[in-house]
């Protein structure tokens, strides 16, 4: 046998067969999951688009009233879209600074032993089931903020945003931390060598160098908040109104689908309208992911010279 790497009894031809067999089975598995996903998408559009026989796109997207079971029914989802957007924005305002600052602390400032202890805890927060967070918002946080701010009701946009921020922080923190951590040490050392303080180094060298990773983190965190269902169903109040203040109850898109789908008659207008809401939601998250992808490619830090 000598130097021949082929194990005994296996001809090179047989090895080739195994190789191509493995290749095709992986191709098949990959195609299978992609096919299933695209079939779900086809189904979503097939079930959602028929609503346009009853209302125009403009009436659907910009209509101010959502009364799907009335005679005649109103299918305006503007209050729901604004509900989703406002809840996501507000949760972003809370989660982005907290998440990024925690990431900076963990990657740059904290003693390695502290970071080693805190990082798994932040990651554990991400595994908290959303129904638990929603229940917490409904039972504990709602009465608390109702008394604290002396407002009529605690189930509102602020409550839902706070809960969603809790869910977005681990995502934003973990991904940003990875981005900050992977900034080449040479950059940091160069900054120190020029006489910059640690603070200056963080804000003028490390943050710009890891900006694309941080942006991706923020967008992924927010896209989780947009699509989250259980929390907004339980804590947002569920009023299909255009919010005027952060203490108004809102009804984001996923909450409407979850609350109404079980009772919507199969194949009826209401059923199609709910699937159409699904399409709108899909477009939102798709846009978010496209943005994340674009930013991470466009502003990627290549090497140490491009800063």
């Amino acid at each position: 046998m000598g130097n021949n790497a082929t194990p005994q009894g296996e001809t090179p031809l047989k090895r080739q067969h195994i190789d191509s067999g493995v290749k095709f089975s992986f191709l098949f598995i990959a195609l299978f999951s992609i096919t299933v996903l695209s079939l779900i998408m086809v189904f979503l559009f097939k079930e959602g688009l028929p609503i346009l026989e009853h209302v125009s796109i403009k009436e659907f997207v910009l209509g101010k009233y959502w009364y799907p079971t009335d005679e005649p029914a109103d299918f305006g989802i503007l209050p729901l879209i604004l509900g989703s957007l406002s809840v996501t924005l507000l949760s972003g305002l809370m989660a982005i600074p907290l998440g990024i600052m925690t990431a900076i602390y963990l990657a740059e400032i904290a003693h390695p032993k502290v970071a080693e202890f805190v990082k798994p805890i932040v990651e554990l927060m991400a595994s908290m089931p959303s129904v638990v967070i929603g229940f917490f918002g409904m039972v504990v946080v709602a009465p608390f903020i109702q008394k604290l701010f002396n407002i009529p009701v605690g189930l509102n946009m602020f409550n839902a945003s706070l809960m969603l921020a809790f869910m977005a922080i681990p995502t934003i923190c973990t991904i940003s931390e990875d981005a900050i951590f992977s900034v080449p040490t040479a950059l940091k050392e160069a900054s120190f060598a020029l006489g910059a303080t640690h603070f200056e180094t963080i804000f003028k060298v490390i943050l710009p160098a890891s900006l694309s990773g941080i942006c991706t983190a923020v967008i992924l965190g927010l896209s989780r908040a947009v699509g989250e269902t259980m929390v907004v169903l339980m804590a947002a109040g569920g009023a299909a109104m255009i919010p005027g203040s952060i203490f108004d109850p809102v009804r984001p898109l996923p909450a409407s689908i979850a609350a109404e789908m079980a009772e919507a008659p199969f194949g009826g207008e209401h059923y199609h309208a709910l699937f159409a809401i699904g399409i709108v939601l899909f477009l939102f998250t798709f846009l978010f992911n496209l943005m994340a992808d674009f930013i991470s490619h466009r502003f990627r830090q290549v090497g140490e010279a491009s800063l």
Partner: protein
Amino acid sequence: MKRMIKGLLLVSVSLVMASSQLFAGELVIKGSTTVLPIAQKAAEAYMAEHPDVKISLSGGGSGNGIKAIIDGTADIGNASRFIKQKEVDLAVKKGVYPVPFRVALDAIVPVVNGKNTVANLTMAQLKEIYLGKIKDWKELGGTPGTIVVISRDSSSGTFGVWKDLVMKKERVIPRALTVPSNGGVVQAVANTPGAIGYVGLGYITAEIKAVDVEGVAGSEENTLNGSFPISRGLFMFTKGWPKGDTMAFMSFILSQKGQELVKAAGSIPLF
């Protein structure tokens, strides 16, 4: 060839046997989701007593239940309302005579936070509150404070009763909070001092306060004697006077044991 014929014969014989077994005691029940829990409990108990009878249940709403009777796609059609004139006309045109059986009663009671001093509201006041015209408790003689209107999702059966009997088909304001279940209403009302909501009679707990309507307290007794205004009968319709298994099932629901199951399902038994 012979073998094939033998095989075919066997298959067809077994098919005929299977189908005859299928038709032997099959009951199809369709309709209102409000009546569904009652039908479900009754069907389970009935099937346990009569293993040869198969009952298939589905929801779809009162309209669909009555339509299924007229079309002949169901043996029993559930409805949380009485049959409409339009449906009677359609049935008669098709030569069908739907027979109503009142199997249970349903009462929806307005509830407020335990600290609220308002104890009685008229139907007109309830409607104005849910239309958003009355906004403060002081307009109703209570302690000043914004009224937080809590409603149910538009597809809920409880919402249906509220809409028919209180709102008289007018729209609840968009500002109203919507909660996905009776339990959720209790939770929200208990936690919100200015809240008003409505729940099925069986859901009232010590944490919240039931409000009298037109001076009548929501109770089983007042529902049975017809004095509580936000109540209705729950019906099962059959195609013509029921026979065979359908008859047996209807007698079961209207028996002492059946009515206990009605109570277990959260509705008010007839006796």
